[in-house]
């Protein structure tokens, strides 16, 4: 079935106006990014060319409803080879920022973020890790003072993004 809907052009402009998103409009859909992408080759859920197409056509809902934009592994293969010098990875960061602001943050990411704020680490220190370290003669991990880190996160607005998420959930 064909769909009739208006293209939401302001969406691509919105992305282009954000830090990191400036080059999004240059994409001419050659597919170099997709064939460079190690993630795209392992999962059908992620195809950078397709996400750019959706952004350029203004399919805002579709971009944010799937978790695709969070799958980029920031390997920069695509960015190195893009003939239009689109800064794909930076565009994905810009998209993620918009998504997070609007409450589309996947659970795993918010868990990481809270872990970072609370413990200063993304990966929590488990019993297993402690035991392993002891076995191979490494000193136990110190707890980290998170005060300074929290200040930085507050200045960048990182904590507000998360609070918004909390309120919504």
């Amino acid at each position, binding site marked *: 079935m064909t769909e009739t809907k208006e293209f939401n052009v302001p969406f691509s402009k919105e992305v282009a106006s954000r830090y990191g998103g400036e080059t999004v409009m*240059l994409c*001419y*859909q*050659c*597919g*170099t990014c*997709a*064939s*460079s992408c190690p993630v*795209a*080759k392992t999962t059908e859920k992620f*195809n950078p*060319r*397709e996400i750019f197409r959706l952004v350029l056509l203004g399919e805002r809902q579709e971009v944010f409803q799937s978790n695709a934009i969070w799958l980029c592994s920031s390997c920069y*293969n695509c960015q190195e*080879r893009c*003939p*239009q*010098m689109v800064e794909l990875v930076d565009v994905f960061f810009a998209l993620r920022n918009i998504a997070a602001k609007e409450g589309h943050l996947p659970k795993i990411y918010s868990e990481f973020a809270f872990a970072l704020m609370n413990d200063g680490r993304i990966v929590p220190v488990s019993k297993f890790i402690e035991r392993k370290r002891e076995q191979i003669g490494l000193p136990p991990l110190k707890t980290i003072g998170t005060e300074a880190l929290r200040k930085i996160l507050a200045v960048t607005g990182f904590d507000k993004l998360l609070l918004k998420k909390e309120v919504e959930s």
Partner: protein
Amino acid sequence: MENLKIGVFLSDCGKVLTKILDFDNIISFLKEIPDVTVVERGTEFWKGSGLQTIVKTIKEQKANRIIVAESLPKLSEIKIVEAAEAAGLNQNFVQVIDLKNHCAWPHRNVPKEATEKAKAMLLASVERAKILEPIHKLEFPALKSVLVIGGGISGIQAAEDLADLGFEVHLIEKAPFLGGIAARAGRFFPTDDCAACIQSPTSDVKTITHTSRKCIYRSGIAAISGLKIHTNSQVIKVEGQPGNYRITLEKKPRYVNETKCISCNLCSEVCPIEVPDEYNANLMNRKAIYAIVPNIYPPTYVIDEQSCKFHECEKCVQVCPTKAVELDQKPEISTINVGAIIVATGFKEYDPSVIKEYHYGEYHDVITNLELARMLDAFGPTGGRIIRPSDGKPARRIVFVQCVGSRDKRWNDYCSSICCMISLKHAIMIKTVFPEIDVSICYIDIRTTGREHEEYYEKARELGVKFIKGRPTEISHDPESNVLIVDVEDSLLRRFLELETDLVILATAMVPSEDTQTLAEILKIDIDKDGFFKEYNAKLRPTETKMRGIFLCGGATFPKDAPSSSLQAHSAALKAVKFLNTGKIVKDQRTAVVNEEYCGDCEFCPVSCPYNAIELVKIDEKHVVAKVSDLLCEGCGICIGTCPLNAIDLRHFKQSELLSQTKAILSINGQDKPLILAFCCSECGGASVDSAGMTMSNYPTNVRIVKVPCTGYLRIEHFLTAIKNGAQGVMVVGCMSDGCHHEEGIKMVEKRIDAAKTLLKEYGIEPERVELFNTIFVEGDKFAEAACAMTGRLEKLGPLRFSKEV
């Protein structure tokens, strides 16, 4: 000095203007001005009896200054000046102003005010007429001979055209043989005929008839009298000026005497040295003494000095039956005199080895389209067979990759425009002869925009060529099976493909020939952002450069196919003919003149002149002055704007003329809005003022117009003088900021306006009183809008007050 007798002619355009302008009032005003001896009113003055009236006034009443108020400003001006000159009056003593479009139409709602403005305009012309000086005609020699640089398809075509028309032509080619890149292409699209034909002229001129297909192979170009072909030669110096250049050529030694060689090939047979043949994409070897293909011009072998052992060997010398091999030849320097130069240096293939992911140069089976063309050529290294260069085995699978190094911001931004067609042509040639070969083309967009080009795309599909929409990310090599793997996304199916193939063809970008930059410096012409020679204006002045007398054609300006290159060659040849045909260049001395008393020791004007018309000349040990070439100067006046000492003036538009017009046009008011002086250029900016009248856009009569040749002419003191003489604001109306007809004029005045604003602030005057407006001809409404807006702005500011003495 003779007494001034000014004749003023007012056209009421068939009485349509009488409803707006009070002609009786204007005439009685004019009659009261001393020196105005004749005032006539009529329907039109640029043809018929009106024009006769002007001629009579000049001849019988001895009027020596003529002012005509006429519509159709440019056309009528040409006719009136022509007639006045014929009647014995100098061209510069005729002024044509446009009361209709600059006054009556835009102010038709306020007839009284319009009449006053018309008086001011006429008074300005009268005041200017009083100080005009005659402009003389100059003649410069124009040699009927042309230098054509580049012996490829365009250069050969241009040289042939000119030689056929009786011009003396020097065709120079850097390489040892004629032909250029096109000759290596094997076949051409869209005609599918051979490319070699352009390379091998014979001497039988008479066999060609007008019905024969134009094939340079049979055209006998080399035998056309008046055409001199210099191969192995380069331009090293250009002196002189358009119409009369002195060219220094350097001819590299060929080591084989052109008059003695009979192309018997004995030398090549005995030559013991073999090196890769770069003409044939290094797919085979050639000897150190060689000719590239059997039919060639000149039909003379050449020694490659990089590889020849010269006197250590001498085998060729011994075997040559005509003693043509001369191992002791030295480079020869010669000079020729020509009137014009045609640059036809073409383009070359981009070296794709910088694009690391495609591994060109590393994997032998990754080749370019031009290299494939050599394979497909029956004269070529494989005799038309398609092989893998790595092992010489036949290629069964071929993948083309489009847009390699073009449409790529990392290398070349632009679309090289011919690579799609080249790949389609090659794919068809392969599929036709070897249907069993599997051919795929990976593309971003297929561009087949020319006549009969789409048929190639269709035919390729019919023949089973696979088209994959996707740009490959990497080419890799499996050393075990010696197979290449092209990694690409079929974006239409959203599927990732790893295409196994024997041969990858890169459709590489086409870039400017080597030495383009050096030649541009020698010729003093511009190159564009992509490194090609810059055409003066692609729409209005194609194949021309901003230097009169130097023309461009073929791939020197951008990658082109053979038909377009030929067409451009005809165009450049015709322009050279137009330029030189009469044997002289006649030009009005509407040029800049330097006051040597003030001028000295700076280099502002030579740098700012868009036409390279000014050079610095030593007057004694320590000092230099600027000297303007009357031939090169186009009279824009940009040098006046830049001169820090105000030492330059224009003969046809002196600064004193501008001053007297400024004073006069502001001296009659007749309305109550703040007076504005609008300086308009004579190009786009001025044209938009004309079109404001033509389209009947309204703006108030406080806006007074003075035209200057280019806004770059204007100096800060010109703005200040306007303000001092009663203008409450100044508008500068010029071309769009990237569309100045004299290149940089508008950008220069932009900076000057910024400086003027700062200065005004110092005097306690609001800087908003001076503004720049960029318009084009069709934007008459925008000029009117700007004029209204400026008036509104000044009304808000209130009357001008000086807080300090100016």
